[in-house]
C-alpha cells in the first residue's frame, strides 16, 4: 500500500461569533496518497475551503478553535509553530487560490513573485532564480517567458495569471498542491487549458493534488477520489467512477441531478433539492441534510455515523445501515 502523504483526523473548526458558535468543519477525516488527486465538492458554507485553510495553518482568527490532527509526512501540522509552518508552506505544500486577480501583488513583476518564493526556501542567486522563473513560466505555457517574466500582473490575462500562480506554486516541487476553485474565475476554454496543465504537472512531478470545487464537471475531469461535504461534514467519500455511477448519499444524488448537463438533451424540469442550504449557526439536530432530504425519517434526528469500507469509502446516512439490515 502506498504511504499516506496527508492524513486528517477528526478535524473540527469552529468560530465564535456574536450570533453564536459557527461549526464550520465537523469531524473531518480523510487521507491522500502520493500522486493522487482528491476532489472536495460542496456548496457555499459546506466547509470545503475552511478545512483546507485549517490544514495549511492559515486560520489566524482568535475566535477560531481548531481541534484534531493533521499529519503531513507523519508530523502533526496543527502542533507546529508559525515559523515551522512557514518552512513547509510554499515548499512542501503549495496553494492555488480562486481569484488570480488578487493573488498577485500589482506593484511587483511576475518574475519577482516566483523569485521570492524560490529564495525564501533555498539559497539561490538572483540570476539563477530568474532563470528558473523563466523555465517555470515556459513549463506552464506562458508564451515568450523571457519577456513576460519582467511584466506586471496587470499585463497578464486572467488565464495567464492563474498559470503564473501555478508556476509559483510548483517552483519548489511541492509534494502536495491544494487548489481552491482554481478555474472558477476563468472562461471555459481557458479552464480546459488549466485543468489539462494540472493533470500534466501531476504526471511529471508525481505531486498529490487536492482540488476544491463546486463544479462536478471539474471534479470528474481531474480527480481519482471525491469527498462530498455538506454543512461542515463529510457526507460521502468515494472513487470518482463509483460516485458518479452510484452515489450513496441522498445529498450527492440530489446534487448530481440538479446540474443541467451539456451532454444531455433537456428535460422539462430539473430535479431539485428543496429548501435552502442549512445555516451553520442553526443546524438541524442530527443529520444536517434531513430538512431537505427526500428520504428523511425519524432516525435522522440523530447524527448518522460515517459507514465506510476498508478503503475509507462510504457515506454518512442511515439509509446505508438500513439497507444492510433488510
Amino acid at each position, binding site marked *: 500500500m502506498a504511504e499516506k502523504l496527508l492524513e486528517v483526523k477528526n478535524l473540527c473548526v469552529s468560530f465564535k461569533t456574536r450570533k453564536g458558535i459557527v461549526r464550520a468543519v465537523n469531524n473531518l477525516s480523510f487521507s491522500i496518497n502520493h500522486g493522487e488527486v482528491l476532489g472536495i465538492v460542496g456548496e457555499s458554507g459546506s466547509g470545503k475551503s475552511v478545512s483546507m485553510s485549517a490544514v495549511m495553518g492559515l486560520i489566524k482568527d482568535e475566535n477560531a478553535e481548531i481541534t484534531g490532527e493533521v499529519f503531513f509526512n507523519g508530523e502533526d501540522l496543527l502542533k507546529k509553530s508559525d515559523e515551522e509552518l512557514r518552512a513547509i508552506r510554499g515548499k512542501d505544500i503549495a496553494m492555488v487560490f480562486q481569484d488570480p486577480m488578487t493573488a498577485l501583488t500589482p506593484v511587483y513583476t511576475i518574475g519577482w513573485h516566483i523569485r521570492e518564493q524560490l529564495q525564501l526556501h533555498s539559497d539561490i542567486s538572483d540570476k539563477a532564480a530568474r532563470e528558473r522563473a523563466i523555465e517555470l513560466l515556459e513549463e506552464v505555457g506562458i508564451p515568450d517567458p523571457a519577456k513576460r517574466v519582467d511584466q506586471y500582473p496587470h499585463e497578464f*490575462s486572467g488565464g495567464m495569471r492563474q498559470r503564473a500562480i501555478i508556476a509559483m506554486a510548483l517552483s519548489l516541487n511541492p509534494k502536495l498542491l491544494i487548489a481552491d476553485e482554481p478555474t472558477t474565475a476563468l472562461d471555459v476554454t481557458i479552464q480546459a487549458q488549466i485543468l489539462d496543465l494540472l493533470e500534466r504537472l501531476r504526471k511529471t512531478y508525481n505531486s498529490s493534488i487536492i482540488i476544491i470545487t463546486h463544479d462536478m464537471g471539474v471534479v470528474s475531469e481531474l480527480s481519482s477520489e471525491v469527498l462530498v461535504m455538506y454543512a461542515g461534514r463529510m457526507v460521502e467519500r468515494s472513487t470518482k467512477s463509483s460516485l458518479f455511477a452510484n452515489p450513496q448519499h441522498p445529498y450527492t444524488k440530489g446534487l448530481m441531478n440538479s446540474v443541467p*448537463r451539456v451532454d444531455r*438533451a433537456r428535460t422539462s424540469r430539473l430535479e431539485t433539492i428543496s429548501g435552502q442550504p442549512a445555516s451553520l449557526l442553526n443546524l438541524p439536530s442530527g443529520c444536517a441534510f434531513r430538512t431537505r432530504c427526500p428520504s428523511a425519517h425519524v432516525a435522522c434526528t440523530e447524527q448518522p455515523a460515517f459507514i465506510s469500507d476498508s478503503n475509507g469509502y462510504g457515506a454518512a446516512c442511515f439509509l446505508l445501515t438500513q439497507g444492510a439490515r433488510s
Partner: protein
Amino acid sequence: MSDEILKVTNVSRVYETSGGGFGRKNKVSALDGVSFNLVQGETLGVVGESGCGKSTLGRIISRLDTPTSGEIIYKGNDIAKKSLAAMRPLRKEIQFIFQDPYASLNPRRQIGAIVEEPMRIHGVSKDERRARAQELLEKVGLDKNSYEKYPHEFSGGQRQRVVIARALTLKPELIIADEPVSALDVSIQAQVLNLFKELQDEMNLTYIFVAHDLGVVRHISDRIAVMYLGKIVEMGSVEEIYNNPQHPYTKALLSANPRIDQSAKSTRQILTGDIPSPLNRPSGCSFHTRCPIAVPECSTREPELRRVGAVDVACNLVL
C-alpha cells in the same frame, strides 16, 4: 411572421476609450453587426466567453445602452434610437434581470416596497400594488410574510426570486436575463431555472438568456446564439447546436466544458492561447488566431453569418 416580437438587424456598439495617448481615442467594437429575430414565447440563449459582447447585447436590446448603428424592431417599432422618455412606456414590457441578486436589491427597503416600485413608477394604485406584490411573491415561491422583510434576511436564491417577482410586476412580454443563476449554488440554481420555465409556460414570456454555463443554456433555451468577440458565430436550435455544432469555436467551447460523463473525453479538444482583446481584434475571422482548422485566407477574409443546413454559421471553411 405575426408572432415575431423582436427583430434585431445589424446592431453594432462601438465604445470609445481614452488611452490612445495625446488625446487619441481607442475604439472598442463590443458588438459588430448582430442580427437575429425572436418569436413570442421562445427562449434565445446567448453564450460566449468574457468580452464576447453577450452582456452588451442584452443591455442594448433592453435599451439600457444605445446602439451605434442598426435596428431593433420591437413589435413593429424601431426602438434603437428612441429617447429615454419615449422608451418609458416600453420599459413595462421589456424587463431586465441582473446576475448579482445581492447588488440588485436596495438593502434599506422592505421586499414589498422593492417589488412595488416599478408599479409605483407606472402609476398603479396603492391597494392594487400591494395585492399584486403579494400574489407575485407567492408565485415565485416565497413566504407571504416576506413582504415586510429586508433583503439581508434572504439567501442568494431567495433574493433572485424577489428580483424575478419585481421584473414580473408590470406583466412584461420580453425578459432579458444576464447570468441570472451564475451566482447561485447548484441546488438553488436548479430551483430558479425551474421557476423561469414555469413562469414562461404560464405567462407566455419571451426570454433572452445570457449565460456562460453551457449546461444551463442548454436546459433553458429553444435556440442558441454563440458569440465570439462581438459577433454571432453560430446560431440555431438547441438540438442542432449541441448535437451537431458547425463552427470550430462552438465545437471547441462544447468540448472544453468539463463533463461528468468521462467516456467522451477522447474527443476533447483544447484551444490554445487567450481570447484576444476586443481593443485589438484580429483581422479577417477574429477566431483565426485560436482556430484549429484556420487557413491563411481566414486572416484576410471576414466570414458572413450564412445558412448552412439547419444553422446559421459564420465560417469560411464550413460548407
